[in-house]
């Protein structure tokens, strides 16, 4: 037994564990869909409400073939990504303004609390009246739902950056803008990334609710339409697609995290 052998064995054990984890993850997935299919076929659950994987799959292929699904997905994706980016960007900018002026942040503190506590989707009807029943309202909805909480979380992180980094910069006669650029912002990247992760989920909520209210396109529309004509195959298919794309977006944010954060 030499060190190399032991090291190989150690690496092999880790790889082995990883394989088992993957195996059980796949097993759960397979078991879920199989059970669903069987339960539906044997009428343990109501087929009309809970559909079945095979029916959803057939519907999916139909919709892919006639091209309608791609249109709906692209609408919703566009709205969500835009709402998500705008919400986070605006939150970061607002946080920067609050950091810049401690006096302003003291003044605005109670208003931020109120705005944060308020359920943003309740603003839906007002947005639709003000911005028209179209894409603008939906994107605004996707952004508004995440902007206040982003502002609060990112601002808190700005305030908590170790003052000694600022001291170092101050002895180099740095301006306030340089302090923000060199210390405050990069030190807060981990927080901003974790806000991004939360915001992925939030903007999907905003956009789907927005589409419930106004749209004639998008996955949220498909859900509400399917509900109205009692086509639950359609509802569940849309849900599954949302789950897949939300996961992809989340993975992309994690990729960004690995690129951006070096320590």
């Amino acid at each position, binding site marked *: 037994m030499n060190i190399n052998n032991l090291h190989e064995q150690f690496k092999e054990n880790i790889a082995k564990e990883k394989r088992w984890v993957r195996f059980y993850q796949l097993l759960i997935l397979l078991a879920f869909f199989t059970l669903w299919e069987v339960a539906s076929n044997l009428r343990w659950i109501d087929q009309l409400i809970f559909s079945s994987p095979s029916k959803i799959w057939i519907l999916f292929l139909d919709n892919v073939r006639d091209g309608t699904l791609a249109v709906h997905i692209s609408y919703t994706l566009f709205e969500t990504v835009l709402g998500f980016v705008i919400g986070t960007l605006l939150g970061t900018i607002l946080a920067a303004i609050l950091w810049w002026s401690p006096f302003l942040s003291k003044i605005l503190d109670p208003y931020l609390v109120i705005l944060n506590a308020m359920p943003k989707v309740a603003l839906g009807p007002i947005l639709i009246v003000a911005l028209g029943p179209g894409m603008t309202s939906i994107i605004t909805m996707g952004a508004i739902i995440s902007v206040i909480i982003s502002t609060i979380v990112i601002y808190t992180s700005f305030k908590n950056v170790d003052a*000694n980094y600022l*001291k*170092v*910069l101050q002895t180099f006669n*740095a301006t306030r803008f340089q302090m923000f650029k060199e210390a405050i912002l990069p*030190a807060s990247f981990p927080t901003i990334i974790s806000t991004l992760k939360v915001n992925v989920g939030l903007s999907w909520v905003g956009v789907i609710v927005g589409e419930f209210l106004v749209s004639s396109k998008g996955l949220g529309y498909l859900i509400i339409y399917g509900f109205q004509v009692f086509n639950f195959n359609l509802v569940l298919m849309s849900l599954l697609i949302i789950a897949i794309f939300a996961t992809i977006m989340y993975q992309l944010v994690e990729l960004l995290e690995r690129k951006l954060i070096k*320590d």
Partner: protein
Amino acid sequence: MTFLTVSNVHHTYFSIKEATEALRDINLTIQKGEFVSFIGPSGCGKTTLLSIIAGLFSPTVGSVLIENQKIFGNKELSIGYMLQQDYLFPWKTIEENVTLGLTLQKSDEDKSRIASTLLQDVGLPPVEKKYPRELSGGMRQRVALARTLAVDPKILLLDEPFSALDYQSKLKLEDLVFEMLKQYGKTAVLVTHDIGEAIAMSDRIFLFSARPGRLHKTFEVPEEIRTLTPFEARAHSSYSSLFQIIWKEMEGLEHQQSS
């Protein structure tokens, strides 16, 4: 030639609950190229005085001048400040950390050349492209020294820069800082708890008493130790006699306080 003048400095910290007097009536001068230390019990305001000299804030009363220029808010004056920990920016490479001051001052000098020369001077192998987390504590503090020297500061302020290091790194770094300052002809102020360190490194030692911080006594370090490196100085016979004197003086101060 008088380089730094602290005259009639008082400083009080205010909070809603109370006003705390940190410094009372401080007067001292430091010559060009001199190395001085501030020592004293905690609460004697030595770090406050260092921050005022660094221009981080203005004293409540009094003035601090370097070559007859005001320090606070003076953008022309470049001051080097080393803290207890290195405070290297973890998201910047070593080179970017060393040249931080130059970047901020929008200097158009050849930054990577300056960085590699300085890193060599502080006794580091070529680590320009590495990140701070890849270096040991002693190496990181060396990088911090290089960062401080990169802007060619008029004065170096050292706020217990060796206290977070293990003993061996501390001794090595003391020698390095001592030699570099002599080589570059820099004026320096060291704040420390460690009497031995103060004797080994400085030309003069200012002893402060606490609450409020006042200048209690000034000690001249004997000529024969001054020229030695800190490591050699610790082995010299004059070192231990001065150590005893300052030790007794500090004991006396603490006694006064507790009684």
